[in-house]
């Protein structure tokens, strides 16, 4: 019985022979190589001059530095966000203390109803009753 592997090998060898005999070779002999070289170099002149002039495209710059710059930019954003959050908390705390002290000093504080922290502007509503007027 015929071994299929052998018949495959025979088939491939036969085809290889066929292709080498009847296949189109690459027409290397018909190409004017120095002309082709010259045309390529002529077109390359501008790109090479740009390189000599040190002109760098922005996308080349970004592509080259993106792997290093992206984590740095993220870290910088995180630090900035934390710093802003802390300073805002400190400012608002100080403003609240000042406001409460003012109210206490001037009229006395009976009841603090609401402190709105939603904005940088501190909104403070307080119900103030004159001293001595009990419920």
């Amino acid at each position: 019985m015929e071994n299929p592997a052998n018949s495959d090998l025979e088939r491939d060898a036969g085809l290889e022979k066929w292709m080498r005999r009847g296949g189109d070779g690459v027409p290397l002999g018909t190409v004017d190589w120095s002309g082709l070289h010259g045309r390529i170099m002529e077109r390359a002149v501008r790109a090479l001059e740009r390189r000599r002039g040190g002109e760098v495209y922005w996308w080349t710059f970004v592509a080259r530095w993106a792997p290093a710059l992206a984590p740095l930019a993220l870290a910088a954003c995180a630090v900035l966000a934390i710093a802003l959050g802390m300073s805002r908390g400190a400012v608002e705390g100080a403003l609240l203390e000042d406001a409460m002290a003012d109210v206490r000093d001037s009229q006395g504080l009976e009841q603090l109803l609401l402190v709105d922290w939603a904005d940088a502007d501190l909104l403070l509503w307080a119900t103030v009753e004159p001293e001595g007027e009990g419920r």
Partner: protein
Amino acid sequence: MVDSEQPRDNARELAEDTACIERTKTGDAEAFGALVARHMRRAFAVSYRVMQHREDAEDLVQEAFIAALEAIDSFESGRPFGPWLHRIVVNRGLNARRAAKSRRAEPLDAEPASAASLPDEVVLLQEEHERLQQALAGLPDRQRMILELFELDGFTSREIAEMLGIPEGTVRWHVHQARKTLSGILVPREGKE
């Protein structure tokens, strides 16, 4: 093999290419010229297999070298330049073929001689050539290109895989399929001879 050039995978040639590429990055025309001279024949062979037309293949080689120059900063130094360039050739060539399918393979002979005036052996060779060309034309474009690069031009399956950006196993599968298809067309008559 496509020409007398040896495969460019030995260490000395790799080092020379790497040096040329580094100098090209600084705008050195002489270095780029050397790179072109060294790689244009093999690039042309690949280009011809994609385009099936000599002039189109020459144009494609020019385009590919200029594209390679524009993108040379992204080329990883120390790697072989040939496969990278061939990949540019193949990608651009396939795009160009998709865009314009009008120009087809040019005939080998400008004016084919009449069969009557030729010796029997030459007539047989001509018939073989025509049958093979017809059989190849029946293959899918990509499969035909892979088979020709592999069988006629001596590229390895690994080199072809790098050019096309596909696994080496896929290249071998295409070669196997193409051989199987061709054997169905060519071998029965071969057996009769």
